[in-house]
């Protein structure tokens, strides 16, 4: 019985690593179960999972093509734009 329990129990290190793999949808049923068991008993990992999911969402949101009406934030200096245009003329 103890051995079965040990097999089921993950360390926090392993549990948080599995969460990362889960974002690719590459966890088998047993690993998903182990991960679920761990987070249901570990408050720190439960928090980590929530925060990691939040990070996942914002980082993914940032990688799309930006929307038109939004200020891009950074501006390419005018002399670089002119450089690109004259570079194009030379093609």
């Amino acid at each position, binding site marked *: 019985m103890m051995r079965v329990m040990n097999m089921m129990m993950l360390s926090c*290190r392993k549990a948080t690593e599995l969460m990362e793999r889960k974002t690719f949808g590459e966890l088998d049923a047993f690993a998903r179960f182990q991960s679920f068991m761990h987070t249901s008993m570990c408050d720190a*990992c439960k928090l980590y999972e929530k925060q990691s999911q939040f990070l996942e969402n*914002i980082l993914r*949101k940032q990688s799309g093509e930006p929307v*038109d009406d939004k200020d891009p934030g*950074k501006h390419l200096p005018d002399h670089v734009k002119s450089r690109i245009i004259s570079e*194009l003329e030379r093609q």
Partner: protein
Amino acid sequence: MKDSNISEKHRIISHWVRQYSDPLYSWAFYRTSDEALAADLVQDTFLAAFQHYERFGGSSTAKTWLFAILKNKITDHFRRVLKSGSLGLDSHHEGTVEWFDDQGQWKRAFRPQRWDTENENLLDDAAFQEALAGCLRRLPSAWASCMHLKYLGGNESNVICQQLNISASNLWQILHRAKLQMRACLEKRWFKPN
């Protein structure tokens, strides 16, 4: 006839430069944290657009097409980063933090704390954007490269591994450590400062 085609092409792409280089540049800078490199990538994007202008069909907008080209340029850049440097996985690597104790449990100092707000609207807050960018800059470049590639739409880890020529277990390790570091950094710089 041919000359007039070329000048028409110049006219259109120069117009695109004025219209789209700011969003392209911001997007590239966010991923590379390097102004000169971001400017070069934008220039390469327009030069490639000029060379392959015939491939631009009416099926997408100019902006979408330019972003697709830039995405390829950035992927190539990340691949070069991974090829040329270390993966930053050995424990002596500068900046490597051991978050867990010998049993693999959270060390007390690194245990995640409760955050008051974790709303995706935070992305509209310029100060939060700045904190996020600061945390990204602190990642070892190989880790940042892997992370950006993941969010650039590589939903399958084997595609990223092939692109970067690294093993799946290295990729998991890198993404795991990058996430641990990003979480702790944002906690310190934004959610629980002081």
